[in-house]
Structures are given as C-alpha cells and as structure tokens.
C-alpha cells in the first residue's frame, strides 16, 4: 500500500513534468513547422537550431510587467488562467501511458488512475475547462475579452455534444468506459479507427474546436477581437492561457491516439521482442510517436486552413457534425445487431 502510493505519486509527477516539457517544446515545434510551411527558417538564434527558444520565451514571460486592470475583479482575474491550467493538467491522470512494468515481482501500471468512468472523467474535466476562459474574459472587463469568452464557451459547448456522441458509438463497440481497458482491447492491430472511421473524423474535428485551434480559433481571432479572451492579460498569466492551449493539444493527441489508434499497442512487435518490460517501454515510445504525429497534424492544419466564419462554425457543429454523429450511432447499432454482438 505504502509503495503503491509512493509509486503513484512519482508517476503523477513524471506525467506532470513530461506534459509540461512537451507543451514547452510544442511552442518551438509550432514555430519551426510554421516556418517550414511558409518557406522560412524559424527561430534559430538561441542555441543550436534555436533549441533554447522555449526557455528564452519562458524567462521573458516571467520577467514581463504584471498588469491587472483597475476595474476588474482581481480574484476572478487570477482564477481564470489558474482554472485553465488546472483542468488541462488534470486530464493526463486517466490516460494509459503504457501497459505495465514488472519490477521484482510487483506489477506497476503506467496509468496513474484506471477509474471505471475514465471517458466521463475526461469529458467532465474538459467541460469545466470552459470556466477558465469565461471567468478570465468576464473579469477583464473589456468588450473584446467578453466577446472572445462568449465565443469560446458557445463553441466549446456546441462541439462537446458532437464529441460526446462520437464517443458513445465508440463505447458501444468497446463496451467499457475505462480508458485502460479500451487501450488494452486494441491489442494486435484491432485499432478502433478501423471500426469507427466516421466517429474518428467527428472526434478529431471536435478536438480541434475544443482546443480552440485553427481553423476554429475564433475566440482569439486577432483581426476582429484584438486578442480575444486574453486581451487584458500580460506576463505569466497570458503565458498560462497560451500554455494551456499547448497542453490541451498534447492531451487531445494522446486521447486520439489511445481511443482510436491503439494507444501503446503496435502490431507484430510481440514477435520480435519477448521481454514484457522491454515491450512496455517500447509501447510507450510508440504511443509518444503517435502523439507527436497528431501534434504535427494539429500544427499542419493550423498553417494550412484559413479560419472559419462564426456562422460557418456553428452550422458545421450543429447541422453537420451532430446529425452525422447520431447517424454513426445508428449505423454502429445496426452493424452490431447484424454481426450478433448485441441481441
């Protein structure tokens, strides 16, 4: 019991550190990929290939002058970015970062908490994340911030429905709400994306909208709203909002990789490597490769597609994705009926 608690604490700290580290280097990757897609060089001054750029950015964020608008509610103004940061870091707890490692006869799972409502936990934490943006936008006492916050919240609520419905079809085929079990079921190339292609498409579009990434980055649409909900923020509070976006992107990529692309499973690798510990570590490496691919996809889309107009965004969410998701549930149910999975 005692070792279990110590082990879980270490694992939670490790997940925390790795999440922050990857989010930090995502900012670097974003700028490098943008430069690559626009035929530029990107950051290349701080360290070799500009590899120290995120550190320089971090120092700059901490050193900048802290501004809190005179009229705003100070407590809520600080609460906004705190909630944004808190909720995006909470989601990493239920993701299986690998199978399990056996040390001296004890089995240690690489998942911090395998709760039996893992997917609902994810949805719940995501839905609470809206408050960070809404409270921050309102407490700024600025019209642009308020408009950005209202856009963000209505966008996130609208796309949560499509996301939830696409996950329901997935739950119908897997028969469990535990993310650990869903990942384990996909062993041997039975990736859920082959069984739920439409659901995967809906899910990834909703994930883009939930993380407020382009082409759905209307909440911080700079040509209309200055900076959106974080117009009044400066220094590390602004940093928290921006950082939360990158952490959300990392976690969304991890969720997509785990739910639809087999998580830590890689087909055929079991034929070459027999040692379970080595397999677990290689599985984690595979999971991170998949995650990095999806992070790249997020950035690739951002620098390729132009921004949606707001009515187009709402039409896509309510009139496009929602009926498609319901259709997907119906198709899944019919197929399961005919293949005899339900009776």
């Amino acid at each position, binding site marked *: 019991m005692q070792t279990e608690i110590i082990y879980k604490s270490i694992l939670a700290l490790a997940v925390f550190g790795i999440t922050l580290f990857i989010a930090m280097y995502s900012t670097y990757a974003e700028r490098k990929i943008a430069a690559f897609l626009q035929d530029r060089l990107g950051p290349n001054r701080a360290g070799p290939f500009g590899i120290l750029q995120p550190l320089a950015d971090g120092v700059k964020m901490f050193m900048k002058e802290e501004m809190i608008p005179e009229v705003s509610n100070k407590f809520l103004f600080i609460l906004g970015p705190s909630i944004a940061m808190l909720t995006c870091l909470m989601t990493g707890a239920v993701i299986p970062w690998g199978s399990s490692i056996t040390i001296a006869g004890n089995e240690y799972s690489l998942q911090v908490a395998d709760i*039996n409502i893992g997917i*609902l936990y994810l*949805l719940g934490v995501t*839905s609470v994340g809206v408050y960070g943006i*809404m409270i921050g936008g*309102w407490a700024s006492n600025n019209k642009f911030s*308020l408009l950005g916050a209202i856009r963000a919240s209505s966008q996130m609520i609208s796309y*949560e429905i499509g996301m939830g419905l696409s996950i329901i079809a997935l739950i119908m085929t897997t028969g469990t*709400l535990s993310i650990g079990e869903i990942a384990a079921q996909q062993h041997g190339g039975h990736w859920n994306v082959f069984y739920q292609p439409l659901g995967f498409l809906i899910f990834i579009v909703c994930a883009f909208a939930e993380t407020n990434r382009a082409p759905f980055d209307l909440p911080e649409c700079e040509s209309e709203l200055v900076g959106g909900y974080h117009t009044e923020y400066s220094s590390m509070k602004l940093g928290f909002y921006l950082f939360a976006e990158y952490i959300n992107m990392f976690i969304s990529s991890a969720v997509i990789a785990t739910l639809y692309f087999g998580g830590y499973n890689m087909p055929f690798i079991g034929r070459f490597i027999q040692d379970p510990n080595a397999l677990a570590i290689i599985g984690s490496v595979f999971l991170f490769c998949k995650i990095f691919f999806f992070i790249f996809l997020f950035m690739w889309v951002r620098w390729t597609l132009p921004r949606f107009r707001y009515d187009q965004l709402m039409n896509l969410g309510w009139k496009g994705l929602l009926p498609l998701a319901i259709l997907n549930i119906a198709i899944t149910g019919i197929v399961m009926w005919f293949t005899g999975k339900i009776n």
Partner: protein
Amino acid sequence: MTLHLFYFLSFLAILCALMVVLEKNPVHSVLYLVVTFFAIAGHYILLNAQFLAAVHIIVYAGAIMVLFLFVIMLLNLNKESEFHKNNYVKGAAVIAGGLLLVILVGALKGTASLPAPEASVGEIGLVENLGQVLFKQFLLPFEIASLLFLSAMVGAVMLGKRDTK
C-alpha cells in the same frame, strides 16, 4: 476520513448555496452555484455513485451553468440595472419559500425511522448496475422520460424560431 469529508462537503455546499442567494453580483452567484454542484458531486462519490457524479459535473457544471453565465454576461446585469421588486412580490416570495420549507421538513421528518444507507459500500451507482436497472427494471419510465426531453427540445426550438417570421 469519510465522515470528515462528508462534513466538509456539506459545509461547503450549504455555505455556497447561501452565498448564491446573498451575493449581489449575479455572476458571483452563478459561480457559487457551480461550487455547490461540485460539493454535491463529491457527495455522490462518497456514496460510490461515480457515474452520477461525472454526469452531474458534465451536465450541470459543464453545460447548464455555462449557459447561465453566458446569458448573465450577455445581459451584463449589475447594480444599476437591477430590477427592483416591490414589497408585495417580496412578501409573496417569502410565504411561498416558507411553505416549501415546511413541506421539505415535513417530508424529511418521516425518513428518520428509515435505516441509514451505508456510504461507499453500495454497488448500485456503478455504471453497469445503473444500466441494468435503467434498461431492464425501469425501461418504460426511462423511455417516457426521454420523450419528455424530446418534447421540451422541440418546444425550445419552436420558441426560438417564433420571432424570425
């Protein structure tokens, strides 16, 4: 441990529920209500009803309260534009609320003789058991409730459409 958590969560829930009523600023009221919902979700977890707790957070804190906040922020309610109710309305509200309190106290008095449910040992709140109960034992009431929701949704859409003629 469980008992301490129960007292803490109850205290938090009651305090925040009071603050919802006493707070002048409507946005702060809504935020206190959100904290109240979180405290109640904590009570569900203490009763081992994880599914109910998660759905409670997703639906109430995640969706309904966001919409509340949304409307209040859009209307930009503050002290200057506060709607002042006259004394008759206030008196009627006090009587109505007091009657509700009497009914609640009367209803809860009868539960004293019932055996207290044991916390965190029941398995009924887990997803599988809840699904079995809802879709086997109480299928018809469950489906009727879904019809009720559908009619409410259709009604909301109709109301929203009315003034675009």
